[in-house]
């Protein structure tokens, strides 16, 4: 265990002193942490604050001005979903299209936010919560009514389709002016 085999007495004492020093250092670090505040968050009594962009449970939203369902049944989200958990059927009416049925299998969802990214009408959004534990997998097979209810139950996160696409778009001055408020929020530089 000694570094050099030359003069045993010196090696022994040097190693011993080094060992005692190392032991003291390590134990002092542990002792210091004994008096620090624990980092435990008492979930679910205490919730930690979730950031704006938190990717939580999916939900369907209503249009802000008319109160109608925002989803037009275009099925873009269905095509882009990597694990193919979304199934939509379109309902055509004279004025606009709706989604006749919209099922989302939350138990297989990857929470990648690609469906939110492509939605042209900001209909599908993610919430700032993940609290949807269930004892039966069928409770996580969300249908359209459930998705709309979830949209009203939790706080939505920042990201919607248009905001994300604006953030990612290469600058085009005319388009940027048109989406004034969204742009201001999305493109605020971090400096």
């Amino acid at each position, binding site marked *: 265990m000694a570094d050099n085999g030359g003069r045993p007495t010196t090696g022994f004492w040097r190693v011993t002193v080094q060992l005692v020093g190392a032991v003291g250092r*390590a134990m002092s*670090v*542990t*002792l210091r*942490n004994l008096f620090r*505040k624990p*980092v*435990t968050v008492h979930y679910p009594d205490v919730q930690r604050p979730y950031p704006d962009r938190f990717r939580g449970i999916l939900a369907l939203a209503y249009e802000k001005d008319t109160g109608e369902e925002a989803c037009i049944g275009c099925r873009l989200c269905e095509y882009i979903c990597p694990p193919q958990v979304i199934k939509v059927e379109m309902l055509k009416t004279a004025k606009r299209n709706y989604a006749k049925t919209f099922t989302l299998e939350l138990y297989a969802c990857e929470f990648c936010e690609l469906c939110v990214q492509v939605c042209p009408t900001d209909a599908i959004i993610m919430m700032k919560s993940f609290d949807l534990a269930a004892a039966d997998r069928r409770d996580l097979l969300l249908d359209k009514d459930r998705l709309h209810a979830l949209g009203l139950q939790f706080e939505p996160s920042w990201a919607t389709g248009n905001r994300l696409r604006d953030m990612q778009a290469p600058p085009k001055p005319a388009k940027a002016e048109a989406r004034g408020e969204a742009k201001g929020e999305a493109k605020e530089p971090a400096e």
Partner: protein
Amino acid sequence: MTPAAWSAVEAFIVLNALLVLVAYVTLLERKFAARMQSRIGPYYVGRPHGWLQPIADALKLMMKEDIVPTASDRWVYNLAPIVFLLPCLLIFATIPFAPNLGVADLNIGVLFFLAVSSLEIVGLFMGGWGSNNKYALLSAMRAVNQIISYDLPFIFAALVPVLLAGSMQMSAIVAAQQGLWFVAYPVIGQLAFVAFLIATLAAENRVPFDILEAESELVAGFRVEYSGMKFALIQLGEYAHMLGTSFLAALLFLGGWLGPGPAALGPAWLLLKAILVFLVVTWVRWSFVRIRVDQILAISWKLLLPATLVLLLATGFVVAVRGAGGG
């Protein structure tokens, strides 16, 4: 009441108090370790600080299914927890809690303690062998190696206070510390105490010497095939042994029941000192990584054994000189 009946009652009381104490010492260790790791430890069972956690754990273990591997050596496997537990509980027979309060304050108290406590190795090996599991076998082989190697320095370090006090009776050793606790004895006391603590860590299979259970390699070592009540007995035995050596350290080195205040406070002081030793051992346990079995054996045979031997000889020399000088 006849002395025999009185002893039986005393033993019964001590055993029960011991079980409760061991249970709550596990809670203390978990909270202490948790705070060192920036977390809280048991909290919800018996809010707000997990006071009922040990009871919940005991109940859970009692209700668990007792799984016995088909290919295990039946008699050896089933007897191992009991053979392991008995010596660990028996050592408390010789520990006096106050000058006249103890089950059996033998005049060879220290010898009895050291001899009986090393019997646990039999139970340990029985457990490892009877489980018919390669991990358990590996662990049992390491255990035999390690505990036998460290028993010698353990004994030598424990003999230093015996020499200084001139008696193996525990109450006599404490009485001899009236003036100066043996841990404060210049040089010899401190070195003996440190050697005793290191040997304790190894004899208890505590990190950095816990190669025999090494959760990350052998997944609980010799205990791996035990479940339910048998596992509870093994855990009980381990912690009881741990506590027993803490009590021994408190008696031999830290002055036992001596302390300011009335004599009736004696047992409280003893308990406090034993818990203090236990916490120091826990502190070491949660600060270091473990070392390999051949390195553990190297430390014992090349470092600790010669050192404690020299220490014992030096103590003998000091005692002889002091005795000759009329001390």
